[in-house]
């Protein structure tokens, strides 16, 4: 394996995967939009085609990069570019969640009190449109959209889920240390444990959601509470799912011995991602469940 020279710039070969990726995204969205508009069959078929293209693209593109990486084509400069890419990608995800958190805070600090008659903003709506609505949280608004509902206690499944995710952040760090120390057995064991914890978390969320729907009447339609609750926890869940899949891929790559003590950017990227979903969860636990 020839060592790449850090003094010569590296430019990757041409690749067909980007254009395949855009095609996949396009089909996926055309399908989804058609489906939403009630063209069910056409929508579903196109959406499925798009999803398949995207999955195929991921195997192709990442497979390609993995092969190049194993051949030792990437010098340290490329490695740094990858790292920056992942870091700023995670940053953009942070801002995606920030939009929903911002919405939640705005609703809770301003909108609901105003609807309850606070300040000069509240006088008119509360005096004329929705008389006597008193501000409280959780709420589904003055017209009780979605009907009466209850919310789960944060100290049951959500607490367990918090502990699961927190410990998974620890186990992935232990795995990382093991990788750097060259301890394969420990690496594979602890990474596997992280995956198990992630799956358990998802399992917990599933129980919680079904409990909400079946017993508490707390659904997407439950006014602003249901809306903010599900958009925040739902997107978080989606991210945990993605993170778990990425962890599984990393586990397989560890088993195959793709990483060594110096070269394991992909592993680190996934572990950053995992810490990120963990931090988001802590915010959710605090602002959505407890407060």
């Amino acid at each position, binding site marked *: 394996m020839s060592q790449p020279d850090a003094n*010569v710039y590296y430019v990757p070969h041409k690749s067909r995967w980007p254009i395949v990726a*855009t095609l996949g995204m396009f089909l996926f*969205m055309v399908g989804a939009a058609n489906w*939403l508009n009630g063209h069910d069959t056409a929508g579903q078929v196109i959406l499925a085609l798009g999803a398949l293209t995207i999955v195929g693209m991921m195997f192709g593109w990442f497979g390609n990069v993995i092969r190049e990486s194993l051949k030792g084509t990437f010098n340290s400069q490329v490695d740094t570019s990858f790292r920056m890419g992942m870091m700023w990608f995670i940053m953009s995800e942070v801002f*995606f969640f920030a939009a929903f958190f911002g919405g939640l805070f705005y609703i809770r600090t301003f909108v609901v009190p105003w609807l309850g008659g606070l300040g000069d903003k509240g006088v008119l709506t509360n005096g004329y449109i929705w008389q006597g609505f008193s501000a409280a949280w959780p709420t589904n608004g*003055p017209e009780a959209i979605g009907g009466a509902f209850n919310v789960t206690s944060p100290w049951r499944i959500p607490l367990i889920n918090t502990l699961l995710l927190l410990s998974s952040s620890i186990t992935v760090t232990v795995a990382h240390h093991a990788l750097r120390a060259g301890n394969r057995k420990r690496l594979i064991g602890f990474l596997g444990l992280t995956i198990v914890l992630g799956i358990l978390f998802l399992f917990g969320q599933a129980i919680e959601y079904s409990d909400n729907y079946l017993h508490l009447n707390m659904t997407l339609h439950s006014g602003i509470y249901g809306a903010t609750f599900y958009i925040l926890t739902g997107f978080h869940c989606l991210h945990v799912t993605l993170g778990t899949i990425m962890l599984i891929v990393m586990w397989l790559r560890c088993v195959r011995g793709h990483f060594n003590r110096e070269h394991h950017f992909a592993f680190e990227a996934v572990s950053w991602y995992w810490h990120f979903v963990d931090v988001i969860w802590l915010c959710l636990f605090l602002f959505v469940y407890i407060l």
Partner: protein
Amino acid sequence: MSSTAQAVHYEEHHQGWFERWFMSTNHKDIGTLYLSFSFLMLFVGGSFAMLIRAELFEPGMQLMQPYFFNELTSMHGLVMIFGVIMPSFVGLANWMIPMQIGAPDMALPRLNNLSFWILPFAFVLLLSTFFMPGGAPAAGWTMYPPLVLQGGESIAFMIFAIHLMGISSILGSINIIATILNLRAPGLDLLKMPMFCWSWLITSFLVIAVMPVLAGAVTMMLFDRFFGTNFFNAAAGGDPVMYQHVFWFFGHPEVYIMILPAFGIISEIVPTFSRKPLFGYKAMVYAIACIAFLSFIVWSHHMFTVGLPLGAEVFFMFSTMLIAVPTGVKIFNWVATMWRGSLSFEVPMLWAIAFIVLFSIGGFSGVMMALVPADFQYNQTYFIVAHFHYVLVGGALFSIIGAVYYWLPKWSGHMYSNFWSKLHFWSSAISVNVLFFPQHFLGLAGMPRRIPDYNVAFADWNMVSSIGGFWFGATQLIFVGVVIHCVFFSKAKAASRVWEHAYGLEWTLPSPAPHHSFTVPPVIDDSQLAHGDISH
């Protein structure tokens, strides 16, 4: 050494058309794709504008149904913002940043190709809505609920198109950050970097911070329309004004995303043709950073009349006026750069000077609108339209055209026609004022924006504005001619240093620049740089 050197030379070999344009990992080819795409979109969005001005030529309904008029204004805005201004700045970044920092290419070339190719697909999604039951989105480019949610089948397509454009620009920005932070030639410190790179570095952070917020806003809309949530329904404890807050938290930084790279371009052009280094280089860098920071705390100036609490009105009024300070620093520094310089008025310089004048006019009307009591008069009138067209056409678009005239010889290796490019300039500079200046009067007199018909009292200035509009639109056809002639037919060879006093690494490369700009990091010679501790 050998394996990577091969990688660099690999693409010099003959490549098929499909390979070159669809599978590219080359920053110049991808830059060309971006620029060509936005050029095309300029005429798509421009044709909507021509239709709008034709309808407004006289009072009364002449050409179209009111609803179609609303579709046109909404799509005009979306196409121009996401399809013209943003992609052409990314195209310029692609072409110039690697050349300006001594890099071979962008840091993540395949991602670069992905970022570009998402765009045409996104616009197919968006433009296809014209042919759908219920027509295209018609609630303005700001897409306010609940009105926009009453549209037909277009809503889902519009939202997904926005998602795609967001992904494209976020990936593009990630790439730019990685390129600038990681691929600068050794010795090219951040504070010796060209202003264009600086402006894009800061813009990229803005993009990463706010495009996801827009994605969040339209995602909530998607849920309200299709999944029965009630984010924007007060009866359920939600609030339509929440959309406006989230949208403008994106929207105001977005307007700076569309102007900061322009600041960078002007800061490159003005010193070259003033034969003096940029006045106050560091102050210029800090001013951009300051504007970027402030742009996060002014968003509610778009919402002064929706019924904000008094404290919020006052806060956003002052924070908005504060932005005029670093903006003023930039204007003064450009003027100071020209002061006592040996000016010459080649075509790029003409566009740059026009930029400074027109952008200042837009900035002044901006400060007027920042005053809450005054804005109660201006809000939702043609005054706003005049304001943002001065900053976006006279500002952003003029800087882009100036940049093309500045760097086109470097890209193509040929000079363009002096006569036709000057005609293009003068015709644009005059017509743009005929087009937009009267809109100030219309707005002050009370003509609302986004309407297909108006009181006869507004007839005269509307006709003037429409004439200016057709004139400006037709003038841009000259631009097409100049560019096509320069790229394919011109015989006049361009030198490496195309302009007498042009400094910076890009001018050390031959014209046209080689396929891979720098294959090994160049040795930095401070006297060849445009900025830093230099004296030329």
